Structure formats: structure tokens, C-alpha cells
């Protein structure tokens, strides 16, 4: 069990969670962020990293992925800590008044304040319709690659035809003992450079490509050992393997947040616009996850919400003391170690 103590625990490392670290840092508060994605950035990293955004004040045009890179640079002086690739499943208040957040992989984060910046919800994998898929989750079936070393010298089968399936198939040829890529159709529509790289690796026999095919059965005891692949909707072949990695992208689902006793309206947390506090003292909600009259799901609105939220967080952490208001032009950035 990993335990982290911090001032503000932030659920969700999308743009609003990230910017909260900056505003909290200006007030001398430390933050720990948790996200189920293996990387920071929320929707910007998962759904549209290569799309340009035009409505960030003062920046006429920026790729979503670059905005996240810049936010990471901007918050670096404040040394936030991260738990990535883990989902917060439990939130409870302890006798000492602190909150305790618990993840699906037994990490525990303790803090006086919780900021929920969960966006449209927890990103969960699209799962192919294979009967006993769930039985092998974490014992042969992975939907997200957190640490490629796990696949060193193993036999890996990836299914999917998008960029992440292509990119991981390419990457894992350097690590795994055998890489098979299974795709429902014949052609790929991913980034052209990834497609041609995959085709080169197929020619070099480093990737075994099976197209017009779908995995339709998983076989094993405590761990997955074989899969059945249906090709052209007729012939079925069997293949031995160590890991099956279906990569069909992720979809956001409100998930565990709905069970934390907060007032929810249409999949969003109701907040007071004074400071984006929820009905539970010490828990705030900012960004796409909250709702209030006139709410707009925009990054710039989430940045504003984050800024006001940390003022109240400061008062809770420092038992009623008001934060002093200063311009960054006056104080500069004093980092936190």
C-alpha cells in the first residue's frame, strides 16, 4: 500500500486539475493528482491531442497536446506528485478531519481538501464483446499499457486498428518476444507514418498481422494461455499467448464519483459558484464535472473555477486564515520543494 499526504488531493489530471496545482502553489499549498489514464491531460491527451484549440486567452492557436505540455511545465516548480493509471474508487472522511482517497490499486491519499476535476468521468476502456473477457482482466488481458517492461520476452496479441494499437505494436516489437496485431478490417486508417512502419515490421516478420479478423474466445486456467481468432467470418485459428491487449480507445464514465454522497444532477456535481464547493465541506468540484446555472464546459472556465476554489481550500487548510492576494508579476514564482 502506497500512502501519500498532501494539502489538496485532486481527482483527475485534466487541464483543470493541472492548473489547480499552479494556483494552489502560489498560495504555498501542495497537490497530489490521481488519474486513471497513464498520462496527464484528460480529454486533451486521450481524445484530441493533435487538434488545435483557439480559445485559450492570449494563445491564438495551440495543439491540445502542447497545452498539456505547457501546463506541466508551468506547474513543475510546485512539485506536484502523481498517481497515474489508477482510479479513485473510495472517498471517506476520517476522525482527524482529513479525507482519505483510495485507488483500485491500493494507493491511499490523505488530505484536508479534495478537488474533484474528473471531467466527463473516469476514462474506461472500450471492451470487445468476448464472452469471458472479464475473467482474464489482470491475468492476461490488459486494456491500458502502463509499463511496457511487463511484456518483455512475452507473446503479446494486440487487437485494434487505431493509432494506439499501431503505436504499441511498433513499440512492443523491441520488448516482446512475439507481437501479433489483429484488425477487424483490411486497411488501417491511423497516422500514415505509423501504418507504413507497421507494414515494414510485418515484412521483416517482427509483427504477425492478421486482418479481417476478431478474437472470439479466450482460453486458460488462472491465466490466459490461448485465444481463438475468427478470420473472414469463417475460419477459426487458435493461438498461444501470454497477453491479450485490446486497444479500442477509452470512453469517459462518471463511475465511482457518483457514489461519494455528492449532489449530482445529470452526471455532474452541483456546486456553489462562490468557490465551487460541493454539498460536502472540504470537497470541491471544478471543470467539466461540475454544474451550476450557466455552466459552460470550457477549459478557460475550468481555470477560473480552479483559481477561486484554491482560495477556499487555503482557508480550510489554514483554519480560517485568508490567503493574501498577490500578482505573479510582483512575487514571481516561488516553487515548493
Amino acid at each position: 500500500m502506497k500512502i501519500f499526504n498532501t494539502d489538496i488531493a485532486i481527482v483527475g489530471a485534466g487541464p483543470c486539475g493541472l492548473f489547480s496545482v499552479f494556483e494552489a502553489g502560489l498560495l504555498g499549498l501542495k497537490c497530489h493528482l490521481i488519474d486513471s489514464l497513464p498520462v496527464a491531460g484528460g480529454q486533451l491527451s486521450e481524445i484530441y491531442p493533435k487538434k488545435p484549440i483557439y480559445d485559450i486567452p492570449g494563445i491564438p492557436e495551440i495543439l491540445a497536446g502542447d497545452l498539456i505540455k505547457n501546463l506541466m511545465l508551468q506547474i513543475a516548480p510546485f512539485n506536484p506528485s502523481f498517481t497515474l493509471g489508477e482510479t479513485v474508487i473510495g472517498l471517506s472522511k476520517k476522525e482527524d478531519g482529513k479525507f482519505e482517497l483510495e485507488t483500485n490499486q491500493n494507493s491511499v491519499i490523505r488530505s484536508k481538501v479534495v478537488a474533484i476535476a474528473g471531467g466527463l468521468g473516469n476514462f474506461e476502456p472500450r471492451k470487445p464483446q468476448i464472452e469471458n473477457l472479464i475473467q482474464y482482466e489482470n491475468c492476461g488481458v490488459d486494456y491500458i499499457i502502463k509499463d511496457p517492461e511487463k511484456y518483455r520476452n512475452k507473446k503479446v496479441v494486440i487487437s485494434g486498428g487505431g493509432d494506439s494499437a499501431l503505436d504499441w505494436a511498433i513499440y512492443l516489437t523491441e520488448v516482446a518476444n512475439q507481437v501479433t496485431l489483429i484488425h477487424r478490417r483490411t486497411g488501417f486508417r491511423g497516422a500514415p507514418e505509423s501504418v507504413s512502419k507497421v507494414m515494414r515490421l510485418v515484412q521483416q516478420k517482427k509483427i504477425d498481422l492478421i486482418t479481417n479478423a476478431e478474437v472470439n474466445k479466450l482460453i486458460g486456467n488462472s491465466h490466459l494461455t490461448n485465444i481463438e481468432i475468427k478470420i473472414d467470418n469463417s475460419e477459426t485459428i487458435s493461438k498461444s499467448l501470454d497477453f491479450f491487449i485490446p486497444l479500442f480507445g477509452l470512453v469517459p464514465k462518471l463511475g465511482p464519483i457518483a457514489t461519494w454522497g455528492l449532489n449530482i444532477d445529470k452526471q455532474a456535481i452541483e456546486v456553489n459558484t462562490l468557490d465551487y464547493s460541493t454539498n460536502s465541506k472540504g470537497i470541491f468540484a471544478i471543470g467539466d464535472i461540475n454544474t451550476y446555472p450557466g455552466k459552460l464546459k470550457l477549459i478557460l472556465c475550468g481555470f477560473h473555477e480552479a483559481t477561486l476554489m484554491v482560495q477556499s481550500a487555503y482557508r480550510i487548510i489554514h483554519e480560517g486564515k485568508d490567503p493574501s492576494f498577490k500578482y505573479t508579476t510582483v512575487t514571481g514564482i516561488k516553487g515548493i520543494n
Partner: protein
Amino acid sequence: MDSDIQISITDRNDKTHMLEVPSDIGMNLMELCNSSEISKMGICGGIALCGSCQVYIESDHELTDCSNDELSMLDNLMYVKSNSRLACQIKLNNKLNGLKVRIAPDQ
């Protein structure tokens, strides 16, 4: 009005809604489902990036071809059939009078 067309949408509870909608205001089928509160879709705002708006076309209307972006999204979705389309990529126009669609199951 002359520009109004009729569209039938069957939701995930198998309930069919008959809608009369203007075809000349540049609306797409995803926006129609959202605005009529038949189904909440459109996480990505309608740029074929989220797959939340998959529908099955159940009438034989001739639709515009799928773009590469739409096809690559469909490659990633579950419950895809030969008549699957992304509703956000279908702009309403007067040729679509009588269109019948069914909303695909939740991902």
C-alpha cells in the same frame, strides 16, 4: 414549412420518436438527438472523435460517404454493423425525409 422533414429515431429503450425538423439550418443528426433529449451524445462536439453518437440507418436513404475520420472511429467502436454511422456526420437535408435510425447500444 417546406423545408421540414420527418425523421424517426428509435432510442435505446426501443421507443420510436417521430420528429419534424427543419432541414435547412445545418443541423446534424447528433444535434437533433441531443436537442430533442432522445439521447445524450456528442462528447467530442461532433468531429468523429468520440463515437458516442453511433446509430444504425434502418431506411434505404442514400447518405454521403463516410469520411476517413468516421471510418477510423467506427473501427474502434463496439456493436458496429454494416449500417452503422456516426450521427454527427450526417447533416440533415431535404433528401433525408423519412429517414429511420436506431441508436446503437451504449459503449
